């Protein structure tokens, strides 16, 4: 009599476990497996095809000796910090503007969000063109009478990152704005009232009360934006191809170039392993805040 007998726990809710098989496989085989595979082969001298010829840390030594990689890392840091700060702050400010019970909110929101629908390739091309000093925005400003205006965001190595930034912000702020807006809408109405009764000016309310309260939203956004930054590739390829010179190189390009163009998989894998490490640096604090924090709460 099966009645009351304890069934094998493995077979309890069997359907649920079967349904989760795709997820488990993806997690284990693709993500975990792929990552481990990559890391393992980063210790080999694989060229065009992966081969298990161990070379220890050679690939890493070479990587950190390559000036292009160093430039890429530095660029990623600069671009990353700027982009994080600006995307989030601009996204938040736009959300605040839209949260003022304005008319045509839908229209404004759509306008700010639509770039998100376009691919980075498109974004890169359009801004490459718009920033062209000969017929883009700079030339128009010149034509409007500001003769001395010189701004060549894409061909001056010192400022090319800002050229990327302009395009990156254009594409990404709308989405962040949406998340922020949703976050703002989730704030208890009474907090606003309490602040008004306390006589706190609006900007102070945002800065000292609302922003701290939206911490989870900020963290989510931070993670989304940060993961995008680490992956930054298409935009650079489309807009500057890493140039002028190496001025706008990013790690993902290095990985790609060395894996496929230089046909030095080992080097590419070493670089990607370093990228994974940087991802971990971003992720672990987040996971700690997000999941560690929840258990306590």
């Amino acid at each position: 009599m099966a009645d009351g007998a304890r069934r094998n726990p493995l077979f309890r809710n069997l359907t649920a476990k079967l349904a989760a098989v795709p997820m488990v496989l993806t997690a284990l085989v693709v993500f975990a497996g792929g990552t481990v595979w990559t890391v393992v082969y980063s210790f080999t001298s694989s060229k065009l095809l992966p081969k298990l010829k161990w070379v220890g840390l050679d690939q890493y030594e070479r990587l950190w000796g390559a000036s292009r990689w160093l430039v890429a890392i530095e660029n990623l840091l600069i671009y990353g910090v700027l982009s994080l700060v600006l995307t989030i702050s601009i996204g938040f400010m736009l959300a605040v503007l839209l949260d003022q019970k304005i008319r045509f909110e839908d229209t404004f929101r759509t306008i700010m969000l639509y770039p998100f629908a376009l691919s980075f390739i498109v974004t890169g091309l359009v801004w490459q063109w718009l920033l062209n000093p000969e017929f883009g925005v700079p030339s128009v400003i010149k034509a409007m009478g500001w003769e001395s205006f010189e701004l060549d965001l894409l061909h001056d190595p010192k400022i090319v990152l800002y050229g990327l930034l302009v395009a990156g912000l254009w594409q990404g702020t709308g989405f962040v704005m949406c998340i922020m807006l949703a976050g703002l809408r989730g704030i208890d109405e009474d907090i606003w009232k309490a602040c008004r009764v306390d006589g706190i000016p609006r900007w102070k309310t945002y800065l000292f009360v609302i922003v701290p309260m939206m911490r989870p939203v900020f963290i989510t956004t931070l993670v989304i934006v940060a993961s995008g930054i680490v992956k930054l590739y298409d935009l650079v390829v489309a807009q500057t191809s890493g140039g002028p010179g190496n001025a706008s190189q990013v790690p993902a390009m290095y990985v790609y170039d060395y894996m496929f163009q230089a046909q030095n998989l080992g080097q590419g894998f070493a670089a990607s392993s370093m990228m994974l490490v940087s991802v971990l640096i971003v992720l672990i604090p987040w996971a700690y805040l997000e999941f560690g924090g929840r258990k306590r709460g």
Partner: protein
Amino acid sequence: VDLEVTHWWTSGGEAAAVAELAKAFDASGDHWVDGAIAGSGGTARPIMISRITGGDPMGATQFNHGQQAMELVEAGLMLDITDVAEANNWKSIVNPPSLLDACTIDGKIYCAPVNIHSPEWLWISNKVYEDLGIPVPQNWNEFVASAPQVEAAGKIPLALGGQPWQSNLAFGAISVAVAGLDVWKKVNVDKDMDVAAGPEYAAVFKAAADARKLAAKSNVQDWNQATNLVITDQAAAQIMGDWAQGEFAVAGEVAGKDYTCLPGLGLNAYLSTGGDAFYFPKLDDPEKEAAQKRLAALLVAPETQVAFNLKKGSLPIRGDVDLATANDCMKKGLEILASGNIVPSGDMVWSADVQKQIEDLMVEFWSSDMPAEDAQAKWVEILKSGL
């Protein structure tokens, strides 16, 4: 039989040349399925390699011959076309023979060369100099000397695209021209690192540093945009391979009249002979294999060679064809070729990895104010790593 052929020839002249190949292939009852991937070899190669290693190979694919495809061959992924080569006697007709050597691994032939490219050309706009009222420079040194006047006239002395390989190409051209064949060979073929670090190459880097100054104002990306600067007389000159000729032709310019071409930068009439070749990944289908072999034979056949290379502006891989219709520049090239003043291309002597690193170095060099000596030192380091 349908055969998918992948390549990265998408610019105007290139596409026209490919059309010739396709026409010829289709004429034999087969069907050329075009798999063009725009961009450059850098974009296209990973895709091709992924497909071959991923088990979904195309029927034929373009590679620069040399070390690029070697591992694929070693992994047994490529079709051995020795029989085709023997049947058509490629050994004796392919000129220079080094082209076929690059296709040969362990005595077997794996690729069909289609053209010869030589990157060491200087293209000069005659109009710019006519306007200035000075004679058109006849070699690199004269060109450098004339540069201040060009600049004073508000034109760019040297057009250079922003893509990394163009910086690399410019350096390669300058090095053959300035250092001369022997020195070049000592370093690249005999791998003599002392020479690489020596004074001959110091001069090369010095010349490159000069060129860097001249190209400072050029801010285009694609090579053909740079060529276009010369065509439209906004720039005085460009260092580019012989394929630039196709662009001049498409624009209706006439060699000698509208523009001048100087092989080996007018200093040393040596050309390095890289080129494109087609490889044929192994397919399980015997019918397709037969078609692959038909295509291989066709690519080397004289008619195809003429039609293709005329359109592309490159040199044919066999000396026995008649290029009467060839223009001024192409003839210059053919002469050099016939005289045997050739050097092997970088693709043949250095691995992709080393070349990529040199490319990175050159990109850095051309876009910064890195001193020539530093660049040379780094360059030697990279070469040493590839020994």
